[in-house]
């Protein structure tokens, strides 16, 4: 099986967001960057599919700055075979421009399966995988928490509000991974050593600006200072009174 996994370098989920001097972006000073957590499920799924097939290739593709080589090395340490960095210092806010760059790179190879995380935990756009599928003319299923592949047919489960949707689709296809799809492995020392020697191709790209312009990045409204109502079960009466009379939510 020939599988491509598209990953993103994002600030760790513990990051405290500080707005940069331009008032439009994240101040990256002191921020720890990691592989987007949903992309870890995608990498793991690719590795398992290849292992199950007994042959094939897992290529990892990342659009990002030079430092994203480190993110790609993490995927290589997990077991991916090779990496491609589409190098751009700044990613456009417009996901369609991002998708065009990724689709242009993927187009030259015939993949059996292309995997993404269902969304990135920084911009919350949850669409790039689906956009890329449309640009490549491939079927796609998003936010998949369980995947079965039998020959050229895939059956995926997606969580929907109040249930699970079972979706059937033909391969080749694009699938975006949700939590629950698998348990991503940690890179072992041997994998980390091996990753250093695996091929990583760097290709500079230029993204268009698209139809979205960032005006400002601001901190969310602060919540009003709350208060401790009391201690133990004795405080419950007062809590209920406050919820009814002050907050008016009961």
């Amino acid at each position, binding site marked *: 099986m020939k599988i491509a996994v598209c990953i993103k370098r994002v600030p760790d989920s513990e990051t405290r967001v500080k707005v940069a001097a331009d008032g439009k972006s994240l101040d990256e000073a002191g921020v720890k960057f990691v592989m987007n957590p949903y992309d870890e499920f995608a990498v793991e799924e690719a590795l398992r599919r290849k292992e199950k097939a007994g042959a094939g290739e897992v290529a990892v593709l990342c659009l990002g700055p030079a430092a994203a080589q480190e993110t790609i090395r993490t995927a290589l340490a997990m077991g991916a075979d090779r990496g491609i960095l589409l190098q751009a210092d700044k990613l456009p806010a417009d*996901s369609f421009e991002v998708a065009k760059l990724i689709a242009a790179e993927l187009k030259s190879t015939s993949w059996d399966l292309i995997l993404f995380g269902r969304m990135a935990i920084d911009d919350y756009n949850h669409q790039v995988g689906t956009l890329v599928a*449309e640009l490549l003319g491939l079927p796609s299923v998003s*936010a998949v928490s369980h995947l079965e592949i039998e020959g050229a047919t895939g059956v995926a489960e997606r969580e929907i509000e109040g*249930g699970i949707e079972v*979706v059937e689709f033909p391969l080749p296809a694009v699938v975006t991974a949700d939590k629950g799809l698998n348990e991503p492995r940690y890179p072992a020392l041997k994998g980390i050593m091996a990753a250093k020697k695996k091929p990583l191709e760097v290709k500079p790209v230029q993204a268009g600006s698209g139809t979205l312009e960032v*005006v400002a990045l601001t901190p969310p409204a602060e919540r009003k200072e709350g208060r401790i109502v009391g201690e*133990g079960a004795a405080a*419950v009466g007062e*809590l209920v009174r406050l919820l009814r009379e002050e907050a008016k939510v009961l």
Partner: protein
Amino acid sequence: MSKVLAVLEQRDGKLRKVSFEVITAARRLGDADAVVCDATDREACAAALAARAKSGGYRAVVFSATATGRDLAPRVAAKLGVAVVADLTDIVADGSGFLVTRPVYAGKALLKVKVTAQPAVLSLRPNVFTPDAAASSVKPETLPVTAGGRVKVREVKAAPAGTLDVAEAQVIISGGRGLKEPANFKVLEELAHAFGGRAAVGASRAVVDAGWRAHADQVGQTGKTVSPSLYIAVGISGAIQHLAGMRTSKVIVAINKDKDAPIFKIADYGVVGDLFEIVPKLTEEIRKLHG
């Protein structure tokens, strides 16, 4: 007045609550045409929506950012050659375009963007736009779908009757490691039950990763972002990625034995002490109100 296409969602022949949010927001932006479309054949539905969006001279196409909306909107957007402006929480017209606010970094910051795409493809974060009185009388047009797509919903396994999704509940009672073991979530389920079908039980990442609760129940940066009227955090210390997922709740109550837990910094009302004494007492009081 400019035209807006409102894409509504139905389940079992009935419009879902998010549909009323979509029509309310769409009518604020212009003259709204409401449509529904059978999404069983995903590609066929997306093609029908895109064809309508192209032919109708619309200024915007509005979805709800539900599981289905998040899958459909980018399919339609790609056919129109634009991105989805996803999960927005505020929108105003700005010249021929829109000025949109969307939470990023799981709500730790707000991004304001100017959208110039024609039509703009927008998805609204559920539970943010309050439906107005006129919304409930909306009569959507059913778009005909030409079968033949490759991606098909074969089956929907419904959650057990009476379980409400955390993303849609008006009241959420979430539990964390303080519950000590999975079986103890029963005390939270009883409290949820006391709210009479309005409440769902949520969970912190720690207990989902430990396998105590399903991922569908997880609230936080790698789970669901929720905005209920009342959020009760029980035995949750308040890691930053959890706070990110629930900080836009209208009212937050925290119950925790550690008075220094970060959750108390964000909570409107806190009760310090043993949750196994406090929660059953609260359940009793809520039952009295609803009984």
